[in-house]
């Protein structure tokens, strides 16, 4: 079932045309990545879906409801953790629910426990490591009541080892809750490892130049990084990116 549908979206900033006739769909329970070079307009797509910007042309629907210009229709995890420094971890992960209505601390506590943040429930953000902050930010997005989560390069600021850790952790969580996720990255391996489908974005102006179905089943093991198929995927994606 189609959850999110982006139809012929066009957006310019003054004379700078960033998106042109962009269309794609995300199905319920699917993990879709948007892969594109820096400055290609990935964050702009999120700002449009999130209602922060209005499209010049085209429409965005979420479960058959038009959501362009409507803030709060999606759950969001930004590139920086963006936790409120005066809130404890527990209060921070509840923020998304609070904004939309009712907070449920019990579920939040359980989730923190599972994420290894149980002992840090009452810690403030400056007492957490970078990876822990990202976990908290993701749990906040996961607990928010909206039906789809947008993640904007959530791991790009982390070091390689922490990033691998976080990717594995994200997959575990995804397997358990099966949320619908739209994930922005410019890391090819990350996109292959995590997603069901990859949308390759060409830049200036951005549109989907190729759609790539990831041929690996679930649950995924770390071992696939060394799989021959994995390298093959990487090569063809690289190729698609290069040719645009």
């Amino acid at each position, binding site marked *: 079932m189609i959850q999110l549908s982006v139809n012929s979206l066009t957006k310019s900033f003054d004379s700078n045309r960033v998106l042109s006739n962009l269309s794609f769909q995300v199905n319920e329970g699917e993990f879709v990545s948007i892969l594109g070079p820096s400055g290609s307009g990935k964050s702009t797509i*999120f700002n449009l879906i*999130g*209602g*922060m910007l209005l499209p010049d042309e085209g429409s965005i629907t979420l479960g058959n409801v038009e959501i362009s210009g409507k*803030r*709060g*229709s*999606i*759950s*969001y995890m*930004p590139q*920086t953790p*963006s936790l*409120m*420094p*005066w809130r404890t971890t527990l209060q921070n992960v509840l*923020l*998304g629910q*609070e*904004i*939309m209505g009712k907070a449920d601390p019990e579920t939040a506590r359980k989730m923190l426990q599972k994420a290894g943040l149980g002992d840090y429930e009452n810690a*403030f953000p*400056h*007492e957490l490591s970078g990876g822990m902050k990202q976990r908290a930010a993701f749990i906040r997005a996961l607990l*928010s009541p909206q039906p789809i989560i947008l993640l904007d390069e959530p791991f790009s600021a982390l070091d390689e080892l922490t990033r691998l850790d976080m990717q594995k952790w994200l997959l575990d969580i995804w397997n358990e809750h099966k949320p619908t996720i739209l994930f922005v990255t410019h890391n090819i391996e990350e996109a292959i490892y995590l997603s069901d489908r990859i949308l390759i974005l060409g830049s200036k102006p951005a549109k989907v130049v190729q759609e790539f179905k990831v041929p690996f089943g679930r649950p995924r093991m770390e071992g696939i990084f060394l799989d021959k198929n994995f390298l093959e995927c990487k090569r063809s994606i690289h190729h698609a990116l290069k040719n645009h």
Partner: protein
Amino acid sequence: MINVFRKGWRPAAVLLLLFILWEMAVNLAEVPAWLLPPPTDIIQEAVMGWEGFRPHLQSTVLLSLCGFAIGTAIGLLTAVILHLLPFIRESIYPLLILSQNVPIIVLAPLLVVWFGFGILPKLIVITLVCFFPITVAALDGFRQTPGELRHYMLMAGAGRGQLFWKLELPYSLPSLFSGLKISATYSVMGAVISEWLGAKAGIGVFMTLASSSFRTDRVFVAIFAIMLLSLLFFGGILLAERLLIKWKSRESGRK
């Protein structure tokens, strides 16, 4: 407490040294007491004259606390209104800055002409000196909220009210407390100035009486009382800050 002691001993030692020098200089040069009394005289007067001084002190404390409370409330309210209504901010803020250029010493007698010798003109004077630092500090705090936090709140669907209560207000607290510290010390100043206008009791009254009868030792008692009072108010705000902004004090404690 130990921390206060560790940090406080240096200025305390300097102060003590200054007093000793003062005492010696006055004695050696045989300066008459009405010109400059030695510190021991002042201390003696403070102890001996305590019963006579206490009602004045009480009156000033009460006046400055009331004025400070009103000034804080009005300062905060002004900041919130100016922040939430950009149109009003653009038209009022410059005038507000201009209003601070009117010297209180000039304004105070006028207030007496308009409102008489009651408590009202005094409260107005204190409010006038108190509210501005609070308004500026709070406004700065509201406006300096990091873009990434604001972006998250908006993406998550926060309305104007939620943006204010869940982001701007808590974010502005440290800045607000800087304003409160300034205002707290100003409020004692404002109270004394307003008492000069004419009052039944207060350190300002005590001071006018003392200086007109050449009781310089009493003038100094009043000066030290004002300083101590300001310090006490400052400490009170500091304490409130510690209690209210736990996340900040823990943060700086770790550094």
